[in-house]
């Protein structure tokens, strides 16, 4: 797992090349915000198939991957385009037609499974879930408190993604990862997965990381490789640099727009201007 060298920086194509068809992939961010969307588009261009997508609140990413036929299985808590766009249409169709198999979670039960993996234990107790049909649907077990409190709790089996992909605001040349604003679930994803790949807006000098190491979400030794893609979270936001590109999301949702959408992406046209939402 470890690497201490400075040769972490690679191309987006190489980064996507490290994710084989059939891999289970947990994607950082939430809905339209700070998702590793450039990597997701590159997986589509490279025609990956049979992926398992693991994310508490996917949206554009899983919809695009379903639209391109890359997905076999999903574990998710809530799936929507969000903003004012409503449901994720191609994801919805994929589930309704049985093209993908969904394991429906509460966001926190998915987090519990990732925690089990991160903590090195086979299962993780998760609060709540009482009265929901989800535990029976997923075959989750309920365990009595062996210490006699009379309480019982649902336990979630470990979820160990093959790869976590995070979209970072900044990385050091060695691959330390900084995220500004909420980390969403990126932290626990990076601890639960076997491997960590990163898409970053930019590389910042190592001195800035040494000056404030508290801001590093993922230390370099846990990171396998980084691709630097300015505006890589497009059409979503990457605060504080840019907001959601609502016209681009609307355009993506047109039935005939997939190729054009992929061609308009910043990793293809790196000169396009920043959109502030």
């Amino acid at each position: 797992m470890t690497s201490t060298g400075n040769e972490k920086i690679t191309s987006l194509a190489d980064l996507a090349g490290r994710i084989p068809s059939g891999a289970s992939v947990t994607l950082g961010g939430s809905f339209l915000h700070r998702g590793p969307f450039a990597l997701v588009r590159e997986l589509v261009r490279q025609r990956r198939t049979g992926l398992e997508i693991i994310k508490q609140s996917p949206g554009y990413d899983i919809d695009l991957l379903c639209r391109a036929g890359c997905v076999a299985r999903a574990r998710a808590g809530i799936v929507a385009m969000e903003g004012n766009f409503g449901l994720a249409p191609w994801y919805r169709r994929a589930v309704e037609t049985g093209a993908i198999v969904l394991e429906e979670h509460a966001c926190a039960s998915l987090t519990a499974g990732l925690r089990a993996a991160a903590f090195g234990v086979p299962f993780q107790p998760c609060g709540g879930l009482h009265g929901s049909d989800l535990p029976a649907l997923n075959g989750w077990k309920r365990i009595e408190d062996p210490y006699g409190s009379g309480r019982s709790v649902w336990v979630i089996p470990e979820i160990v993604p093959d790869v976590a992909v995070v979209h970072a605001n900044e990385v050091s040349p060695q691959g330390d990862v900084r995220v500004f604003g909420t980390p969403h679930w990126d932290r626990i994803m990076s601890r639960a997965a076997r491997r960590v790949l990163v898409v970053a807006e930019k590389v910042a000098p190592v001195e800035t990381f040494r000056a404030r190491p508290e801001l590093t979400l993922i230390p370099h030794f846990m990171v396998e490789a980084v691709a630097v893609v300015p505006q890589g979270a497009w059409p979503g936001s990457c605060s504080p640099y840019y907001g959601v590109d609502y016209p681009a999301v609307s355009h993506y949702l047109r039935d005939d727009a997939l190729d054009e959408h992929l061609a308009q992406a910043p990793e293809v046209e790196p000169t396009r201007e920043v959109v502030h939402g």
Partner: protein
Amino acid sequence: MAESWSPFSYLVTNLARFVRPDEVTFSGVNSSLPMLACLLAKRAYDFDFVYLNVAGGVDPEPSHVPLSSSDPVLAEGSTAVFANEDFYDLCTRGRMDLCFLGAAQIDGYGRTNVSCIGDWHRPKVRLPGGGGGAVMLPTARRACTWRTEHSRRTLVERLDFVTAAGGMYGVVTPIAVLVLREGRLRLDSWHPEVDVEEVVERTGFDLVTTDARPTPMPTDRERAALHALDPDGRFERDAAVRLR
């Protein structure tokens, strides 16, 4: 009524009225109306409360109101980032006073379905899923939900799937405010432009209406706050809520 009250304003204002002094209140993803309700409460009411949101904000001072209720704008001005693991844990350990959670179907016990229409394994419609619901509804001290449509399709006798159960406190629709008492949702108040019979008629489960009253009209401060939050009516148009 002389004065009219748009169903959009009715929803946001009555969600805001669930907010109480000094409590910790949370709004999540896909939740533009609760987001507006929490921001309205901060402006219109003379008490302090802690507003947490899914963007990691802690009593934020957003420069504008975003279309996405999980937009990073909702963390602007925050003195801390209280992220997903933290607010879920806060809730499961019993420290979350009020959660706003979405629902597609609601039954008379205050249980919700956000998973599917039809059989889960062969759904007519695959819905977004419950997000925090299954964990937050039973563990928050109070949970409230809303529907932009009040009908027998949304307020049902029988859910197609129980996504989340337990802990429901109140429901707001374009025409009514329902509150859970003794395990059943009852009519608490109705929109002054409809009557009790219409609310009962449009509700799929048996609705006890004793002690219900017309909903008090919005105060000037509530109206002013909502106008300040949605000056050009963008949110009202997106929500597209109708009385009937």
